[in-house]
């Protein structure tokens, strides 16, 4: 295992694209997957026990990834959660409750929209957007929080805590807590609070307490650290409503379970609209919850190529990125063994991305496994590429996407161009993109990026301020206790 990523730092950057464009290599990757899906390795009885189907992997391990690298104090809570979840997921009453909320509260099924004008920029391939941006609260995150909040109630917990990067998971958690009458505390990096001030206000409006985290990089990983500290101290009353398909078992499998609906719907919808499966499915990857949700619908369809797009930040060669699988190496962080951005001493490296939701130095363990076995290809998308895709979708489809999701759109442009190359009828190529969230929260960042703001942060030619005064310590290296 583990031959995919360039293990040694950034030295390879000068080669341009990290993942090979070499057709021979791509073919061999595909062949591996075909053999895998055909069950070729199922009989071998290897320790990794590769199953014939990749769907519904229960954990705790995904190949050699996953597990429980956690303080003993929290093991009992993880056991309780696992037990509650295992019972709930086969309990018709629970499943009906989830389905009812998905339908009548979140607004599922979300649409599958063909992006007909955008497709011209993707080599002419037909591009279909899975519209998670249309869900209540504006992203896929609602799927998971409703499920977990219901589990919290089943466990008799009265309080939920959550970490958030962009604020989408925090808003979703605050929403679910309000709906189900739970107390909610959200940990958010101070740097992210500045980047996403609107979402801080949203959470507060929904009755949640937002705690700005000033440790370390003041972003998502530090928010998770503080949430874990809270959980250890309050585990009797508190459920940790983890927002991504990472962390200790059972979280990766549990979070995926509630997002599988994305892939199931998308698969049915694309069959209904085009009469066949897509050639490729694309999603962005931070921790990887929206991606694992949509991938899940297609994992056992070997003819569907699957792509995960990581945040390439300023470019992976600069070292300022969040391309965990592309350049990381296996390690343990926040409870799971997975690819990890770390230095020679095993210290976590701070990630960088224009997108707060992808700005995380780890990744869910199932993605590490899917990368190693070659079922999913993971590639970096730079800030600039993502923002260009953001602009394109606004202008061609009238949809303002989240910057996170714009990484998937930028990836779809590349994939579409690749798959249509030399084809007489590029419209025969079908690509499904998970549009995981809407971009309302990103208006300030985008306006800044596109030079729409004056020095005071006002939209040029107006006195409309998009932001509060920028904190002086945005890039401070000091961490106060």
């Amino acid at each position, binding site marked *: 295992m583990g031959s995919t990523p360039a293990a040694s730092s950034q030295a390879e950057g000068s080669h341009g694209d990290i993942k090979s464009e070499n057709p021979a290599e791509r073919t061999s990757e595909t062949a591996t997957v075909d053999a895998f899906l055909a069950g070729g390795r199922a009989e071998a009885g290897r320790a990794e026990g590769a199953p014939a189907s990749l769907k519904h992997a229960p954990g*705790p*391990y995904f190949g050699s990834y996953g*597990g*429980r*690298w*956690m*303080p*003993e*104090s*929290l*093991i*009992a*809570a993880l*056991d309780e959660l696992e037990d509650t979840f295992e019972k709930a997921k086969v309990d018709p009453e629970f499943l009906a409750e989830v389905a009812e909320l998905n339908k009548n509260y979140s607004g599922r099924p979300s649409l599958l929209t063909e992006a007909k004008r955008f497709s011209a920029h993707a080599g002419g391939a037909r591009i279909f957007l899975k519209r998670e941006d249309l869900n209540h609260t504006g992203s896929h995150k609602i799927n998971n929080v409703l499920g977990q909040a219901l589990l919290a109630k089943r466990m008799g917990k009265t309080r939920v805590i959550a970490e958030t990067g962009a604020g989408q998971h925090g808003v979703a958690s605050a929403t679910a807590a309000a709906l189900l009458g739970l107390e909610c505390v959200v940990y958010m990096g101070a740097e992210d609070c500045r980047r996403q001030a609107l979402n801080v206000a949203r959470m507060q409006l929904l009755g949640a307490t937002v705690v700005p985290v000033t*440790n*370390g990089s003041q972003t998502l*990983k*530090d928010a998770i*650290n503080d949430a*874990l*500290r809270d959980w*250890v*101290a*309050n*585990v*009797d009353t508190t459920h940790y409503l983890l927002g991504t398909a990472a962390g200790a078992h059972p979280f990766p499998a549990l979070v995926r379970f509630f997002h599988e609906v994305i892939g199931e719907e998308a698969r049915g919808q694309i069959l209904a609209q085009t009469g066949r499966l897509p050639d490729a499915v694309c999603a962005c990857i931070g921790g990887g919850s929206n991606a694992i949700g949509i991938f899940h619908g297609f994992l056992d369809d070997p003819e569907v190529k699957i792509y995960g797009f990581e945040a390439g930040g300023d470019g992976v060669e600069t070292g300022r990125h969040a391309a965990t699988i592309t350049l990381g190496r296996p*390690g*343990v*962080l*926040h409870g799971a063994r997975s690819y*990890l951005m*770390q230095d*020679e*001493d*095993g*210290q*976590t490296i701070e990630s960088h991305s224009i997108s707060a939701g992808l700005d995380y130095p780890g990744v869910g363990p199932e993605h590490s496994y899917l990368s190693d076995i070659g079922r999913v290809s993971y590639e970096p998308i730079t800030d600039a590429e993502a923002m260009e895709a953001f602009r394109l979708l606004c202008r061609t489809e009238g949809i303002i996407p989240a910057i996170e999701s714009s990484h998937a759109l930028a990836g779809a442009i590349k994939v579409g161009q690749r798959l249509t190359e030399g084809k007489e009828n590029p419209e025969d190529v079908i690509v499904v993109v998970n549009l995981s969230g809407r971009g309302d929260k990103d208006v300030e960042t985008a306006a800044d990026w596109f030079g729409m703001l004056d020095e005071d942060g006002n939209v040029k030619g107006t006195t409309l301020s998009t932001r509060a005064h920028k904190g002086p310590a945005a890039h401070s*290296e000091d*961490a*106060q*206790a």
Partner: protein
Amino acid sequence: MSTTAPENTPAVASKSAAAIDRAKAAGRAALVAYLPAGYPDVQSTIDAGIAMAQNGADLIEIGIPYSDPVMDGAVIQAATVEALAKGFRVESVFDVVAGITAATDAAVLVMTYWNPVMRMGVDEFSRRLAEAGGAGLITPDLIPDEAAEWFAASDKYGLDRVFLVAPSSTPERVAMTVEASRGFIYAVSIMGVTGARDSVSSAAEAVVAAAHKAGAERVCVGLGVSRPEHVREIAAYADGVIVGTALVAALRDGGVPAVAALTKELATGFAPAVAGGTAATA
């Protein structure tokens, strides 16, 4: 996923157990004193470690500064953040261990989150720790369930493996952890992170009792222990008392002399309480 210690582990002479037994022979519990390596610099850690050993500490616990210390409170994290900012490298911990073991009889353990060990390689880390004279590892985020590699390496190099038990641990997990450990069991006194507290949680005694009941010969209590009266209280039912945050704060505020003075003061907790003795300072 349950992995327990191999049944027929070759007998390894435990340095930690020997240090605790020496204290026991003197009619008292053992004092385990913690400081992070490299705070404020590597030589200071060695000097402070020696000072702790000379002033009543039986075991020294040296922490490896780590970027994501989820079990640590504000005081220890501030110290480890500073050490990292000054360029602390993991391999310096072996210099610290060697420096203290060369000058004292104390057993010197390393307390570390698991990723730095994994990154160096569990076997390589263990080899170098043993070579430096270290007694073993305390692993706050490694449970026996995930410790197969560490079982092998600790047996190979004769190192103690100190796992934690918590108030939330089920009897089954306590039994499994006791069986997996060597040296002593680290009983977490409270559901929380490191940090000085006014009183020691009443949960601590129950955790120690559960570990003893499961067959543990040596159980030490940590988290929230900062004063001589805490030491006295815990020594009544445990085999050792672990102090961390209070010593880190002393080092921060008064350097090595303050660490020496606090260690000496903490050790007075082992003396029989005398009327008019140490009036607690708030």
